[in-house]
């Protein structure tokens, strides 16, 4: 079972060196325990471009698909047997990156 752990943040700016170091430790542990699938940090929402090609003509829009105070700053995809395990990992991830984390299952 895989879960998406989304990192939620509301300010500009990248992780501090201390946060980066803590994230590295957490990532190493995920790998060592066989829970790591993928992870990454994202550029600011202002760097986003939205493409809509549903109508045959490609529409390009500058900026994120939804303007909000909080945005997705990065994510982990992890292997976890059940939600309790995923919530435990999210708690550790949140502490490491010093941000809120949303947990969602893949179907």
């Amino acid at each position, binding site marked *: *079972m895989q879960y998406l752990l989304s990192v939620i943040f509301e300010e500009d700016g990248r992780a501090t060196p201390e946060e980066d170091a803590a994230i590295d430790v957490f990532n190493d542990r995920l790998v060592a325990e066989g829970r790591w699938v993928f992870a990454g940090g994202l550029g600011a929402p202002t760097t986003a471009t939205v493409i809509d090609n549903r109508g045959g003509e490609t529409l390009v829009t500058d900026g994120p698909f939804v303007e909000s105070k909080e945005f997705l700053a990065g994510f982990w995809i992890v292997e976890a*047997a*059940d*939600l*309790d395990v995923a*919530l435990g990992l999210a708690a550790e991830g949140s502490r490491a990156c010093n941000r809120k984390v949303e*947990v*969602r*299952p893949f*179907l």
Partner: protein
Amino acid sequence: MTASDVHDAITRAHHEEWARVVAALTRRFGDFDVAEEAAAEAFAAAVERWPADGVPPNPGAWLTLTANRRAIDRVRREGKRDDRHREALMRYDDDDPPEPLGAVGDERLRLIFTCCHPALAMETRVALTLRMVGGLTVAEIARAFLVRETAMERRITRAKAKIKDARVPYRVPSAADLPVRLSGVLAVLYLVFNEGYLATGPGADPVRPGLTAEAIRLTRLVGALLPGDGEVAGLLALMLLIEARRPARVSRTGELVTLDEQDRGAWDAALVAEGHRLVRERLASGEAPGRYQILAAINAVHTSARDVRDTDWSQVVALYDQLVRLDRSPVAALNRAVAVAELDGPDVALAAVERLGGDLAGYHAFHATRADLLRRLGRSGEARAAYETAIELAGNSAEVAALTRRRDRLAG
């Protein structure tokens, strides 16, 4: 056997067996939805068959067997379950190491902890617990919480889908997580009880005994499953001692009667005695009490006084002192101030209450308490204004009536 005997047997079976049947089916089929529907069908079959065929010698076994058959029918009807579906089945661990608890063998405990999982919103936990563990119908739950049946149905359906899709595990939490998770379960039960005890809504009955009785029944069940836990016993004692006063709590004219004005002879002596016994057992255990045990002890002091003037207020304040060390909420501090008024006078209490104004400005009981204290200090004008605010904020019809009367009795 008369028709009414059969009816009683079905009611009893529903109380005693519903959660067991749902738990067993959830375990076997790994699906809340299948379990709930099959259990409901089995009880419907009992209502249909037992009056004609007679009550089976082992009603629980009959219901489980019938529900199992219905569940198998449904699973077959829905065709072969592909691997993906199988993978989505609720997770439980047969090879879990044995828990150091003793009673965890009972499937119903898994059911309770899953319904009260912290990943579900509080109102969802309440609804799901009443449906899956309590066996209330969706219509009954909707009525109890004054929401439309379709809205309640949606809430429960969404919860079941989340449990399945996000794979909320079907198990009793590990020993390390148990205290926190159990306090979450107790919070759900206490919320059900309080909603029954002090129902909100202008058109609502001020007291809904169905919900208080259900909360007590479920707390008894959790108590039987986790017999060593002091807080479960404390919560049960607390509920019993509050429930005991119910007959004296609302006047014939539908007005809330406060503790000091209640007819103590109308209290339920058997419930008081059981509550007192539980509190004594907790005291004798010598373990440090948690929040519910302290609240139960406070209620035991109140219910020990034959007349309000005999109340041992120093004991009540001492218990509140203990409570506010554990529970730093402003509501606990407010309740302590009420007791302080009796021990040290309304002026001392008012000073303590005024300090809580920032946190509790939107809480009707804060304004009602303040109003009472101002009234006792002869500050009628300020008391009137405080009663007005309390009346505006109070959601319970009997409470509004009592506050209105007190406001109207003010001098000048």
